[in-house]
């Protein structure tokens, strides 16, 4: 079964894999933004996660520890952002951009001497006979644990935001930090925790690129994935399951573009490369034109610094 020289089962299976980094980074950023913080440093945190994860995995020989190292590396970087924006009340947009620039440079420094090394392999999970089911075996049961974990994290974030008290408090802080403070919630502490969670997700996403997708280390390996993750959060209008859809859509376009190139298609790849961003712009226009429910979904305190006055 082939369409334009592309096998749909392989296409779907590989888009699920291709989407993992942006999916993890986007679900983390969603939590951060739901708490009212706009962290534009996702790209920087991802690449810090990519190099820290790579170094950890190479030295320990364990990919699982590599993902942990990636998360910790990105969290360390995000602490700089948390300190500047939550304690010193620096502008979030400027600080986030600086974080990306710093992360790109610093990862490059850390990565000296790691070029050309192969990291330990992350194997697919064994599903036995299930892998033999036509089409679905390839699509659903041929992946490594991170793919399944990323979907599970989306489900967990959705459930926590929707049903738990912690999620309610997080949303409340992002909605109106003044009101949350007046009720006695620790706005800064909650936001710092959200920033750390976002960084851990971005770091794991980055580590997935250097440990599984590529898998090796080169400078600037994330190649803009962090920016796509930021776009997905807006595209998804801050809803977890739509983040999953968005990540698969954007990941799918990346894979399709590679496959079309390989199949010698006549559609210039540049159109496909720009399509995620065009779709995001389109969604933004549609969202903001209708003043209804969709437009309301953005956290009301997004990007505003909180300072407890009298």
């Amino acid at each position: 079964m082939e369409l334009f020289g592309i096998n749909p089962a392989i296409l779907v299976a590989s888009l699920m894999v291709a989407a993992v980094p942006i999916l993890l980074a986007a679900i983390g950023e969603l939590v951060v933004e739901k708490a009212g913080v706009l962290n534009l440093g996702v790209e920087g945190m991802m690449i810090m996660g990519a190099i820290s994860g790579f170094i950890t995995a190479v030295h320990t020989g364990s990919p699982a520890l590599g993902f942990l190292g990636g998360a910790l590396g990105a969290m360390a970087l995000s602490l700089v952002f948390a300190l500047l924006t939550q304690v010193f009340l620096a502008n979030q947009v400027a600080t986030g951009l600086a974080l990306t620039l710093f992360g790109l440079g610093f990862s490059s420094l850390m990565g000296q001497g790691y070029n050309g090394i192969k990291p330990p392999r992350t194997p697919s999970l064994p599903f036995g006979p299930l892998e033999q089911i036509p089409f679905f075996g390839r699509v659903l049961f041929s992946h490594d644990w991170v793919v399944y974990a990323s979907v599970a994290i989306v489900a967990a974030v959705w459930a926590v935001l929707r049903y738990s008290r912690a999620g309610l408090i997080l949303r409340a802080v992002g909605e109106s930090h003044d009101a949350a403070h007046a009720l006695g919630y620790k706005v800064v502490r909650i936001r710092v925790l959200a920033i750390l969670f976002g960084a851990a997700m971005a770091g794991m996403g980055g580590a997935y690129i250097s440990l599984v997708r590529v898998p090796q280390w080169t400078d600037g390996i994330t190649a803009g994935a962090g920016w796509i993750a930021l776009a997905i959060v807006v595209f998804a209008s801050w809803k977890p399951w739509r983040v999953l859809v968005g990540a698969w859509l954007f990941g799918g376009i990346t894979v399709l573009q590679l496959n079309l190139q390989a199949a010698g298609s006549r559609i210039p790849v540049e159109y496909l490369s720009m399509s995620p961003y065009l779709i995001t712009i389109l969604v933004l226009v549609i969202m903001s034109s209708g003043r209804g429910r969709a437009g309301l979904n953005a956290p009301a305190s997004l990007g505003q610094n909180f300072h407890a006055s009298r």
Partner: protein
Amino acid sequence: MTQDISADVLLAIEGIGKSYPGVRANDDVTFRIGAGEVHALLGENGAGKSTLVKMIYGLVKPDEGHMSLRGAPYAPAEPRAARAAGVAMVFQHFSLFEALNVAENVALGMDDPPPMRDLEARIREVSEGYGLPLDPARLVGDLSAGERQRVEIVRCLLQDPKLLIMDEPTSVLTPQEVEILFGTLRQLAAEGTSILYISHKLEEIRALCDAATILRRGKVVGTCVPREVSARAMAEMMVGASLNAPARATGELGPVALTVERLSVASPSAFGTSLKEVSFEVRQGEVLGIGGVAGNGQDELLAALSGEARTGRDVVRVHGRGIGHLGPNERRQAGLCTAPEERLGHAAAPDMSLVENALLSGAVRKGLVRRGFIDWPGTRAFAEAVVKTFDVRTPGTGTAARALSGGNLQKFVLGREILQEPGIIVVNQPTWGVDAAAAAFIRQALLDRAAKGAAVVVISQDIDEILEIADRFAALNEGRLSAPVPVAGLTLERIGLMLGGAHGMHKADVHAAEVAHAET
């Protein structure tokens, strides 16, 4: 005075003091609240009422003094501790989340909320038990101001409080809603809950409260039993001076200056109110008061008059000339100046100096920009004239607007518009959050402008203010404007009905109208 028997004292406050850099917010404050008592805390803006209740609610720690609750020492480190001790608070602003529903808002104010489904049932039960019906599933952003307040009250009641603190609860309510609220509060007091009621509306306090403590500049300056003293006596204790009602010259009205005909504008904000076929005219030398409960289209009306929202050319006319299609600067040129409600961020740019803020609005009429270059000496002189004429207390005109107190900034904003000598001036909530002395000054300035032949439109939620200065009154209700009626001979009952209230007036409010009439 009312509570000598210590057994009946719920909360005792002894010698509480709190300082901020440059300000002594509270100084040796001592008073007691009895069990089941409705106790009023009276004072002007800046008298230290808010700081005091924040200390009782655990949001701020006192520098000195101590409190005791039912005889036991009470020093809440955070609101959670205060709630655990049985102290609940209904805030004036900033404590509801518009994008969350009623049940979620209530849950956020509780320390150990039951599961959502049980909570929804409890909300229904309690809200109906106290005559404050609420639908737990509705978004708070879609509720009226009165319903939002119910959410806050129900949130407190679910925790079975011993002391309920209410900060300016009636500022957003219609007279009819006030009566419902008072009924609830009396029921609570009868059940043994003490209420600390903060307000500067004296007639309400006389109708509701058993005892009152009056604060001025952070100190207790008196206590009284509100039922036994007149509103004027309490006001004078509050201000520390005798108050003068604004004087007005009765002159002949000139020709029609401002005409608005069938003005319909969609609100730019999702939770706003669209205007529907608003029509009125104002003559030279006349003051038109537009009353209404917050969120009934006041902001949208001001935007349509200032030029922020544009309409058809002939919908808004100045001296017969259509200006509906023009922007704010062209309207200023035509002699129409406006001052919006929100001082910081709308009327004034918070981080810019007073000189720069004076330029932003005064550039056109005062000729402060020549060939694209700013005339800084002229602008400075204009800003200094505003500061001097309107007694704006500021270190200098180079100070950022943000650094001024609310009342002073309001004087600056209104002075800036009035000194441009517009033929028509439109103001929204000119004395909101301004102390009595400054409010009297602002009202007098508006009347003086009218006496010089300007047409004045005052949009206000303060009915007493409108009765005091307006010639004619119109009510804004859900974006529709009633036909203007002369203020002379208007009863509060009639006003309540015009504002959209349904039935049943409160005695105290009728009385307030009589007082207001007596003073004008």
